[in-house]
């Protein structure tokens, strides 16, 4: 499996503050990859490093098998929608498309025009007068219009209302369905990505907590409910992600590729959102403390 983004002990420091530290990950090609993590996990820094806006302080990063884009040929292969979808407020929609055409040799003018028409964007409208959702759509049109091999979207829906979020993501799926495009999109909310991505990377504190195809993650994570029990007594091969206990009952989120054989457990599936939250809580160390409090009660 080839990687679109591969990092080795990647780090980026702003003055004294490490925005990303010791990050090693590999994002495979041919997927719509959700990069999820809480605020401050280093998602934006990682993506800015991947598109060449930033230079790493330590470690290495490879994008599409080479260094992050710096030359025109490499830049053309990576499309980027930056956080908050920046556009030139004084330029019209049509002028943004012209910008795309002038600055990208592989520009798909037909696609861009068709898409803005379909979105109902008035070509003569100044971009500064567009709504947040329309701005994001315009910026996305530019990012896809250059026909990249890899499309990177940094928090594309963060500033949109729930309806606009859904529309944007549905529309994104449609726009990328046509080509052989790898997509990486980040969010701090799993719910945003659940519908669109088929591969998940959970990043907390610069570390990858879990990564894999969505269906595989769903197949290997189980919610076990049963009589109260110390999680340490579980068989080898069952990794406990989170545990909560009442006086008589334990609820465990377990990762394992083996079948659960113990008849004491009631086994149920787990939603992506709960799974991601469990990993985030585990990384934050908050879950353990709450368990202890409950045990001593």
């Amino acid at each position: 499996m080839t990687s679109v983004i591969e990092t080795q002990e990647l780090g980026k420091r702003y003055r004294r503050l490490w925005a990303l530290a010791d990050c090693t990950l590999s994002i495979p090609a041919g997927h719509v990859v959700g990069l999820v993590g809480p605020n401050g996990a280093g998602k934006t820094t990682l993506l800015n490093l991947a598109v060449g806006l930033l230079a790493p302080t330590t470690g290495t990063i490879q994008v599409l098998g080479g260094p992050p884009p710096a030359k025109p040929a490499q830049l053309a292969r990576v499309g980027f929608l930056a956080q908050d979808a920046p556009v030139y407020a004084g330029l019209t929609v049509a002028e943004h498309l012209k910008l795309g055409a002038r600055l990208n040799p592989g520009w798909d003018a037909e696609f861009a025009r068709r898409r803005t028409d379909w979105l109902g964007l008035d070509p003569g409208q100044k971009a500064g007068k567009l709504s947040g959702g329309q701005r994001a759509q315009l910026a996305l049109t530019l990012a896809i219009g250059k026909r990249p091999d890899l499309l990177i979207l940094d928090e594309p829906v963060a500033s949109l209302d729930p309806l606009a979020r859904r529309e944007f993501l549905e529309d994104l799926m449609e726009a990328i369905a046509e080509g052989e495009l790898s997509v990486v999109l980040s969010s701090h909310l799993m719910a945003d990505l659940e519908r669109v991505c088929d591969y998940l990377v959970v990043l907390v504190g610069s570390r990858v907590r879990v990564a894999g195809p969505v269906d595989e993650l769903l197949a290997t994570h189980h919610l076990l409910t049963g009589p109260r029990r110390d999680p340490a007594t579980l068989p080898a091969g069952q990794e406990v992600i989170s545990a909560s206990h009442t006086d008589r009952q334990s609820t465990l989120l377990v990762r394992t590729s083996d079948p659960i054989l113990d008849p004491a457990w009631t086994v149920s599936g787990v939603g992506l959102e709960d799974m991601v939250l469990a990993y985030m809580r585990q990384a934050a160390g908050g879950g353990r403390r709450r368990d202890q409090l409950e045990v001593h009660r």
Partner: protein
Amino acid sequence: MTWLTWRQFRPQAVTSVVALAVFAILLAATGPHLAGMYASSGVASCHGGGCQPLAGNFLTTVSGGYTVVFMLGMAGVLLAPALIGVFWGAPLLSREFETGTYRMAWTQSITRARWMASKLALPGLAAIAVTEGLSLMYGWWAAPIGQAARLASGSNFPLGMSPFSLLAFDAHGVVPIGYAAFGFTLGVTAGVLIRRAVPAMAVTLLIFAAVQFVVPLAIRPNLFPPEHASQPLTANFSGVQSQGPGRRFALALDYLDSQPGAWIYSSRAVNAAGQPVSIMPAACAHPPNGDSMPCMASHGFAVAVTYQPTSRYWPIQWTETGIYLGLAVILAGFCYWRLGRRLP
């Protein structure tokens, strides 16, 4: 990329074309009449000692509205580089950082170096063209006044500015090119370092004003070593003379008969041996007709003048322009390096 730079620069380009047009109309409406007055004043065809009173006459007749245009025009030429630095240079890149659009621009299929080159080249060349355009128009308009001012001495008339005087030197010749290039790149640099438009604009204005204050006063006089001359004392001494108690006296010149328009650094009375003197000989203290100059001249006294000859006008202009252009190149190179290597 040129298209994008042009599109982003269009509002400023329109503003500057309008400003140039207004300036041109103002000067074209008044210039021919001024030139006509100069032609009929006889200054153009005068010889030797007759020139000084003719030039003085011309300068006193040119007054009122012409004074206003003269001042306005000079202010326009002098302020243009500062305004360009503040309103073109400082926002050029800081606006991109402030609104985040640099992230869009830098992820299109062109290199950051090309983007920078285009962003700097078009407005930078326009800055030079606009400023030098203003200066040339103004130079054409003010040429009669400049000619007369060079010949007239000690005129208190506001238009009596010699080519080397502080403001006149800055508004003419080629130095506006250097000021414009420097002002623009200074603004760009402030924008790159501060990344916010309004503070960058303020810093640009402060630094530019400081440089424009320091260079004429501290650097320009030292570009070429001055020359020395001695002007004999004559009856009706035309310079500044003052007398104190006990035969103390002082003399100063702001004009050299042999070098009309020369830049006088300093002048003072000296004796026959060339040493500075400040006490009048007793014999000269009470001259019969009240003018002690012929008496002092007979004692070998003269006025020693340190000055820059008029022939140095263009060497100083070019040298100063070169310094400012050099600074502009250094600043532009710094922006290039800063954005190319050390990223936001």
